[in-house]
C-alpha cells in the first residue's frame, strides 16, 4: 500500500486495493490475473498496485484474452485455489460469458454434488467519463438469474476487505461490478453523510452483506430509493435537494449484493415508505431494477402506494461526447425530476 492514505482518508480505489492485498496475503492459493495488472502499472485503474511486487508468482499480467483468463481462473478455482480476475473494462466481460455462465457457475452443481468455486471477476463499469459506447456500460443485467452466480457491486460505504472475504466464503463464482466513478472518491464509514443525512448498515450477516441505509436524520420515509453503489452519490444529491426544496424525505438503501437480492432486508423499509424507486445506471430494458421491482411486488404488494418505479439510463448507446453522454446516462437531475413527478401524479 502507498503510505499516507489514511491521513487524508482512503479513496474507494485504495480501500479496494487494501482488500485485494488482504485476500492475497491471507491465502497462499489466491491469485489475481488480469491485463496489465502488474507493477509498476497496477492495472488500467491502478487498483492492483503493489500486489505483483508482494506476490510475484500469484499476480500476473495476462495476454488480452478475457475468456481464456477467466477460464484459467475457473481452473484454479476448480483445483481448490482462489482466483480474482480483473476485466480491464466491464464491457469486455461478454468475452468471458461462456466461462462464467457455462463453466464456473455450472460447475457448482452440475456434477451432482456441490463443488465450491472461489472465483471473483472484477468489472469496472459505468460512464460519465467520456469513454464512449464500448467502455462505459453497466452489464450487470446480463448476468442476473444465472444459478450459482452472485452479483456484487462496490459501494462507497462497504469495506472491500469484508466484502471480498464474504464473496469468497460463499463458494459460488461472483462478479464484482465497480463503478469507475467511485474509484477516486473518499471511502466512507457509516455515520453522518452530511449535515442532514446519516448512513447505517442494516441486515444481519446471515442475509449476506449489510445493506447501507442512508436517510435524513429523524425523518420517516416519504419514499424509498434502492440504488446500486455506483448511483448512490447521485441519488443522495437528489434526495438532499428534494428534502431541502420540496420537503420530501427520501431514504436510500444500497445493497452490496445485487443478486440474489436481499428482499427480506429491504422489506420493512419498503412497507414503511410505500413509494419505491430502484436506481441503477444500466440502459433501459431487462434491468436489475425490473427484477428488484418484481420481488418487492411479490413480497410487499399491499403496502405499496403504486408501482415500483425504475430509474435508469435511456435505451441508447452511451455517447463519448460529454454533452451527449449526459443525455443518455441517468443523472442526479433525472432522478430528482422522476421522483417529483411521481409525487405530482
Amino acid at each position, binding site marked *: 500500500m502507498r503510505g499516507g492514505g489514511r491521513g487524508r482518508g482512503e479513496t474507494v480505489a485504495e480501500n479496494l486495493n487494501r482488500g485485494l492485498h488482504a485476500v492475497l496475503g491471507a491465502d497462499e492459493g489466491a491469485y489475481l490475473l488480469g491485463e496489465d495488472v502488474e507493477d509498476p502499472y497496477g492495472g488500467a485503474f491502478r487498483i492492483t498496485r503493489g500486489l505483483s511486487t508482494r506476490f510475484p508468482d500469484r499476480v500476473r499480467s495476462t495476454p488480452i484474452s478475457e475468456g481464456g483468463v477467466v477460464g484459467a481462473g475457473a481452473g484454479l478455482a476448480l483445483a481448490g485455489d482462489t482466483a480474482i480476475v480483473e476485466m480491464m473494462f466491464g464491457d469486455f466481460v461478454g468475452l468471458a460469458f461462456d466461462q462464467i455462465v*457455462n463453466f464456473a457457475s455450472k460447475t457448482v452443481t452440475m456434477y451432482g454434488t456441490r463443488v465450491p468455486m472461489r472465483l471473483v471477476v472484477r468489472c469496472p463499469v459505468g460512464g460519465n467519463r467520456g469513454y464512449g459506447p464500448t467502455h462505459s456500460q453497466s452489464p450487470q443485467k446480463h448476468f442476473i438469474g444465472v444459478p450459482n452466480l452472485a452479483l456484487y457491486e462496490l459501494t462507497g460505504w462497504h469495506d472491500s476487505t469484508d466484502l471480498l472475504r464474504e464473496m469468497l466464503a460463499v463458494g459460488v463464482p461472483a462478479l464484482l461490478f465497480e463503478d469507475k466513478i467511485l474509484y477516486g472518491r473518499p471511502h466512507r464509514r457509516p455515520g453522518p453523510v452530511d449535515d442532514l443525512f446519516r448512513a447505517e448498515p442494516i441486515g444481519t450477516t446471515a442475509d449476506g452483506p449489510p445493506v447501507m441505509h442512508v436517510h435524513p436524520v429523524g425523518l420517516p420515509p416519504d419514499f424509498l430509493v434502492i440504488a446500486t453503489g455506483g448511483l448512490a452519490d447521485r441519488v443522495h444529491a437528489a434526495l438532499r435537494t428534494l428534502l431541502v426544496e420540496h420537503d420530501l424525505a427520501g431514504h436510500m438503501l444500497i445493497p452490496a449484493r445485487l443478486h440474489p437480492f436481499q428482499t427480506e432486508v429491504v422489506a420493512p423499509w419498503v412497507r414503511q415508505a410505500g413509494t419505491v424507486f430502484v436506481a441503477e445506471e444500466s440502459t433501459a430494458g431487462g434491468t436489475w431494477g425490473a427484477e428488484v421491482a418484481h420481488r418487492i411486488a411479490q413480497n410487499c404488494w399491499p403496502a405499496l402506494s403504486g408501482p415500483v418505479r425504475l430509474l435508469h439510463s435511456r435505451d441508447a448507446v452511451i455517447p463519448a461526447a460529454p454533452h451527449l453522454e449526459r443525455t443518455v446516462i441517468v443523472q442526479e437531475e433525472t432522478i430528482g425530476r422522476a421522483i417529483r413527478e411521481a409525487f405530482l401524479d
Partner: protein
Amino acid sequence: MGTRRLPDTAPLSRLRDEDLSRLLLIRHFELTVQNLFAGGHLSGTTHTCLGQEYVPVALEPLLKDDDYVFSNHRGHGHYLARFDDPEGLLAEMTGRHGALCAGVGGSQHVRRARFHSTGVQGQSLPVAAGTALHLRRTGSDGLACVYIGDGTWGEGAVYEALNLAALWRLPVLVVVENNGIAQSTPTSRQMAGTIGGRAAAFGIPHLCVGSRDVNVIREQTAAAVATVRDAGTPAVLEFRTDRLGPHSKGDDTRPAPERAAAAARDWYLRYRDRYPEQFAPADEAQRHRMSVVAADVLARPLSRWEP
C-alpha cells in the same frame, strides 16, 4: 510436423489382456448405448466414440491419478479408460440410482476425482491451463490432459489457452482426436492450415499419431507426455482416427463408401481377425458384462437430486 499422415494399416501387435478388455468394454458400452437409445431407454442425446476407443486406452498408463483430465461431448471412452465404472456412467446417462453425478450432468457432464467433462467445445482448454497453474504452484508433477476434436480448433478459447500454456510454461497435454469430421462438416471444409501448423505458431511441440496399435502408440507418445510432466510445458498429440458411428444419433451424412472405408480401418475387426483366440472370449466377456450392467442399471430407481 503438420503432414496429414493417413492412419496406418500395419498389423496390430498383441495386446495385454487388460488393454484388450478395456477396449472391448468401451466398444460394448457404446453399442449398448446405441441399443438403449433405439429402445427408448435413454433420453436426450449422446455421442459415441466407436472407432476411437484406443486413444484413451493407449494414453491411460501414461497418466497419473492426480492428473486432471478434461473430456468433451464424446467422452465415454475417456471416462471408462480411466475408471472401470460402466455402471456409474450408464446410471448417469439414464438418471438412475448410483449415477455418477446424480443424473444432473448426463452424457456430456461428468466428474469424478480430477476427471471433468463438458458439452461446450473448447471451454476446457483455458480451465485446464488454470489447473496446470495450480499444479505447478503446489510442486506436483501432475499435468492437465484435455481431449478435443478437430472441429474444436475453430474455437478462439483453444488459442487463448495455447498461448497461456506456452507463455506460462504450463503442463497441458492437448489430445486431439482428429476424426476428419465435425458433426457433418469435413475437417477440410472448416480448417485452414493444419493442427501441427497451429501448434507450431505457439512454439508448442506437436506429434501426429496414425497408429491404432495401443502398444505402438504408447511407445510413440511416452516421451512427449513425460516432457509435459517433467519440463512442465505443453504439447499437442494429434491422433488421426475415425468416427465409426453417427455424430450423435442417426445423423451420419457421410457417403456410404466413406463410411465403409472408415469401418475397414476399425481396430476391432483388424484385431479380431489377427488374434481370434484371444479376441473371441474377451469380446464375449465384455458383451456379456454390458448386458448385465444395462439390465442392472435400468432396474434401479430414479436418481434423486436437490439443487
